[in-house]
């Protein structure tokens, strides 16, 4: 089953090994505005959730993404 790390790797087009909880959007060039929206679309589709825009903005690291997704799954 696909993991959140797999989704990050595919959406940002980076190696899976580079996806750690510390990875943040200020850290790599691949995580630009357009990639962020690809990532959001992939997350919403995979987890069948619809996030608030403020959460979309707040999703600035892998760790934060995991926390936000968990909130929608409760």
């Amino acid at each position, binding site marked *: 089953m696909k993991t959140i790390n797999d989704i990050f790797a595919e959406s940002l087009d980076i190696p899976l090994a580079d996806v750690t909880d510390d990875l943040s959007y200020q850290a790599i060039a691949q995580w*630009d*505005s357009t990639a962020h*929206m690809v990532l*959001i679309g992939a997350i919403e589709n995979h987890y069948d959730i619809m*996030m608030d825009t403020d959460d979309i903005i707040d999703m600035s690291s892998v760790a934060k993404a995991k926390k936000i997704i968990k909130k929608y799954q409760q």
Partner: protein
Amino acid sequence: MINTPGPSRKWDFHRYGVSLSKFIESDIEMVRQWRNTPKISQQMLDKTYITEKQQQAWYQQLIQDESQQYFLAYFKEQAIGVVSLTKIDRLGGTAEPGMYIYNDDFLNNIVPFCVAFALNDFAFEELQLKRLYGKIYLTNRASIRFHEASGYQIDKHDKNTGLQIIHLDKHAYNFAKQKITQFIRY
């Protein structure tokens, strides 16, 4: 620095959680300081340092010039950047948009799209323009991806300047923006 709306602030356009407010005189020193910050000036075609005197002269010319409009972009009542329409040609229905986000908290997520789309909607709906032109550096991959996702089409490459000429038509824009605006849920 003033970065929250004061009583004299007038909103000229509001959409996607973004408010655009035309420059007023009390804005221009803050904007000058933003513009002279290396992270912003390096993005500009003209990278020269702007003095207070130059900024004041530019503003006095701006307020009398109908071919240019400059706005502070507010998100959640905080000034986060600057957008502009220059070379506005009402008869030809064209203009050149410009944008920068000063606040790093709002880079690399959905907010730059919100700001750009607010400006584009203002241009196409309020000013009734038909086409927007832009110039971007081919080396700026993020900018190319951003503009393509917004519906821009590539015209030609200027080998002398390294700039790519791009344009955005209203129909292509309205089609492209739907993919992003579905996530703007304000």
